[in-house]
């Protein structure tokens, strides 16, 4: 047996063992869900490179790390966290530290919104809240998401009441401290917008240390009829971390989801977004920006399913790669036979700052209906020498000119971050990251 296979096997055994040791006395809902997910995990195991969706993204490094120890309650001191909270007006704040909800750091009194956490709901067997958990993800579509449910421990449960309109974002922030080193966290969030509700959510993952840990998260977003969500996601984990995000979106009639994703941290990060149109008239926009530098892999998988007629989807992702950074972009749109009058547009552009960087991009449009408007386009390019000369001829140093051009390339996506303060903060981080490497 090779070293890698040994690692997979060890990880799998240890995981099964861990699941077997979980308490069974926390009510029927939890027991049912844990066990169906555990069964699912033993059926699926970990994905391997023979599966198309995992062809370009090896998990061997992740398994070799052996993040078997689960998360536990960390000692939490406020001041070091507060500086990371969203500046400017917010509707409320939901804070997790090392995977555990922090009521003292959070502000969950939002008119028209019910905020709770998974752990409390599980401990009190609050079925009213729990009933929607897992309805979109099921017991798991791959080994990791099954593992998330089998071992789920905490997460945010946010339900925006029918007709409520929030005029400022909810700040959902997960911070990892050095206590997370060597551990796996498995947050599981559920966001529900009831009929006609409108909200903005900022969902961020960041780290206060440079240690290695594994964040294996699932987020379910359900928008009821006519609801509208602006979802701004930021992944800035430690550059030694592993981050796997599984985002499931379901849109009822005339619902509107507008999401923007920034992925720039982690040694290995993968975001899987699946969108399901459940009724006509809905629209889904997914925007994303990824940055990968020395030693980093960043991966985005989109799966948009037009199962009903008259829905619009648009995906626009851009990547900046430097050093020996690697990126994978896999954008799949399926327009089913009955989904007439659909519109689906997919675009992916990559800016390579180094010859050693690598991107695998794979747009896939499967169109089975005939009365649709669809397009896709992919580009991989370098900084335009003419543009560089132009800026330098106006006195800008080569380094400054490059940064400005990179930011220019990113700006179309960054503009999707609606809060000016957050957008400028992120632009600063991006400049720093690009400037720090050759």
């Amino acid at each position, binding site marked *: 047996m090779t070293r890698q296979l040994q690692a997979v096997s060890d990880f799998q055994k240890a995981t099964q063992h861990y699941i077997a040791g979980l308490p069974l006395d926390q009510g029927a809902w939890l027991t049912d869900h844990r066990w169906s997910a555990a069964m699912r995990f033993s059926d699926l195991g970990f994905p391997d490179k023979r599966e198309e969706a995992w062809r370009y993204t090896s998990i061997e490094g992740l398994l070799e790390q052996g993040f078997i120890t689960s998360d536990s309650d960390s000692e939490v001191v406020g001041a070091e966290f507060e500086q990371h909270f969203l500046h400017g007006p917010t509707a409320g704040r939901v804070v997790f530290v090392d995977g555990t909800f922090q009521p003292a750091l959070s502000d969950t009194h939002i008119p028209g919104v019910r905020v709770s956490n998974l752990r409390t709901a599980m401990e009190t067997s609050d079925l009213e809240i729990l009933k929607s958990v897992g309805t979109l993800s099921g017991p798991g579509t791959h080994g990791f998401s099954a593992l998330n449910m089998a071992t789920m421990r905490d997460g945010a449960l946010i339900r925006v009441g029918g007709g409520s309109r929030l005029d400022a974002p909810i700040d959902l922030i997960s911070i990892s401290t050095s206590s997370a080193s060597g551990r796996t966290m498995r947050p599981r969030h559920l966001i529900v917008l009831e009929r006609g509700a409108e909200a903005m959510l900022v969902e961020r993952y960041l780290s206060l240390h440079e240690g290695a840990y594994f964040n294996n998260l699932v987020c379910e977003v359900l928008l009821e009829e006519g609801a509208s969500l602006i979802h701004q996601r930021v992944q800035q984990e430690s550059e030694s971390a592993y981050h796997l995000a599984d985002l499931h979106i379901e849109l009822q009639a005339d619902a509107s989801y507008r999401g923007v994703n920034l992925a720039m941290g982690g040694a290995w990060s993968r975001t899987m977004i699946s969108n399901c149109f459940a009724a006509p008239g809905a629209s889904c926009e997914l925007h994303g920006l990824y940055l990968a530098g020395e030693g980093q892999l960043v991966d985005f998988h989109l799966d948009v399913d037009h199962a009903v007629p008259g829905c619009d989807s648009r995906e626009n992702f851009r990547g900046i790669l430097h050093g020996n950074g690697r990126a994978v972009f896999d954008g799949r749109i399926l327009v089913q036979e009955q989904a007439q009058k659909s519109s689906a547009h997919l675009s992916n552009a990559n800016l390579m700052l180094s010859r050693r960087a690598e991107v695998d991009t794979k747009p896939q449009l499967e169109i089975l209906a005939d009365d649709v408007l669809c397009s896709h386009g992919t580009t991989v390019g370098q900084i*335009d*020498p*003419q*543009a560089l*000369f*132009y*800026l*330098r*001829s*106006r*006195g*800008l*140093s*080569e380094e*400054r*000119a490059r940064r*400005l*051009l990179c*930011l*220019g*390339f*990113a*700006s*179309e996506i960054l503009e999707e971050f609606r809060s000016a303060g957050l957008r400028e903060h992120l632009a600063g981080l991006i400049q720093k990251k690009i400037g720090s490497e050759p």
Partner: protein
Amino acid sequence: MLRIKALRASVDGKEILKGIDLEVRAGEVHAVMGPNGSGKSTLAHVLAGRDGYQVTGGGVDLMGQDLLDLETEERAHQGLFLAMQYPVELPGVNNLTFLRESLNAVRRARGEAEMDAVGFMKLVRQKANDVKLDQKLLKRSVNAGFSGGEKKRNEILQMAVLEPRLAILDETDSGLDIDALRTVADGVNMMRSPDRAMIVVTHYQRLLDYIEPDHLHVLADGRIVRSGGKELAVELEERGYGWLLEEHAA
């Protein structure tokens, strides 16, 4: 101010400039003319330090500095400005941000303090007004989706804001656009000053309807074949410059 001596340059091993001598003093406006392929654009680009040109001989002195020794941005810091024939579009790069970075880079190099946001805005509004650039274009991405005339105006705006000591305007073959041509000419006339020199590179005599150069040079096959003053401009206007080329070839 600028002294070019026996300058030779090639592109991909092909010699384009075959020994250019040119002296430009402060306060002067020079026009460099000549047919397509005579080396006019190459001369402008070599002076600005664009990659892809190999200088194979001669030298260029700008106010006591060996110009060819400097990086492109250092030339800008020394007061050199090249107005491009085809200004590059920079999607996502805000025009104001670009102008401010550029001005501050040049000011830092000159040992001046960076300009604060308020002072900068005041300056840019004034200059945009002077060059008749629509203020709305300041908030857009640099040149992205601008018309030909708007791009030229934006170049002239940059020149007006940066106040170079030596401005080179490359108009090699854009003479057909009258609006663009007038914009450039107005910019040159506005910026004319005793301590500034300008070189206008053009293919078309038409530009001389709007600009009165102090000196005029005709470039052919990588060499200056004739230099003169206003009288040469008049002669060129009457006879074109075909006769000069024939004379040179003979």
